């Protein structure tokens, strides 16, 4: 069964810490995405990547960065965590082309205290 795996289900971090959220897909997909999910706001795109070492800003990139050194792994980095970054983070991948098939991970619920 194809998968997008997020390394942590729950994380609690302190304000000012550098936080890494990891996402790995086993489908050889070209595209990978990081979304943030908040009640009443739906999912908002933080960053996406359409190839190794390529990245593009989404709608809410401030306070975040990303890394894609290998095709299967897409990392989200909070340079200095703040309480307003407490949220559910969802990773997704898609194979590109005309399929438009996305696969989502189960999410990481991050709490910044």
């Amino acid at each position, binding site marked *: 069964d194809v998968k997008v795996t997020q390394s942590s289900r729950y994380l609690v971090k302190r304000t000012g810490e550098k936080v890494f959220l990891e996402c790995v897909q086993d489908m050889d997909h070209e*595209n990978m995405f990081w*979304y943030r999910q908040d009640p009443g706001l739906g*999912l*908002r795109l933080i960053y996406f990547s359409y190839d190794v070492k390529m990245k593009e800003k989404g709608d809410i990139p401030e306070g975040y960065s990303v890394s894609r050194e290998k095709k299967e792994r897409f990392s989200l980095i909070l340079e200095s965590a703040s309480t307003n970054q407490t949220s559910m983070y969802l990773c997704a991948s898609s194979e590109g082309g005309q399929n*438009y*098939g996305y696969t989502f991970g189960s999410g990481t619920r991050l709490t910044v205290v």
Partner: protein
Amino acid sequence: AQSVTQLDSQVPVFEEAPVELRCNYSSSVSVYLFWYVQYPNQGLQLLLKYLSGSTLVKGINGFEAEFNKSQTSFHLRKPSVHISDTAEYFCAVTPRGGAQKLVFGQGTRLTINP
């Protein structure tokens, strides 16, 4: 740019009743449309998608949606709901031929009462 509006944040219905979850979108270019479901403590699962062809799209779990270009809508329907349909539902769009970024609505929480 695209935007998606889900007109109801919460929809309570009784078991075996029909349900419609409403979705409107705005875009200056043609789009593909999607409905996703999120069960408690899980990621998103695709219910159905409209890429081309018939405007009535059938998905999993007995759901269907109809694309109405003139009204820029993509409402989701099910003729008879079950307790297991309790979940949050998201409508999403992406521009045709673009970078495949999904733009999501705010979500509709569907609650099924026995």
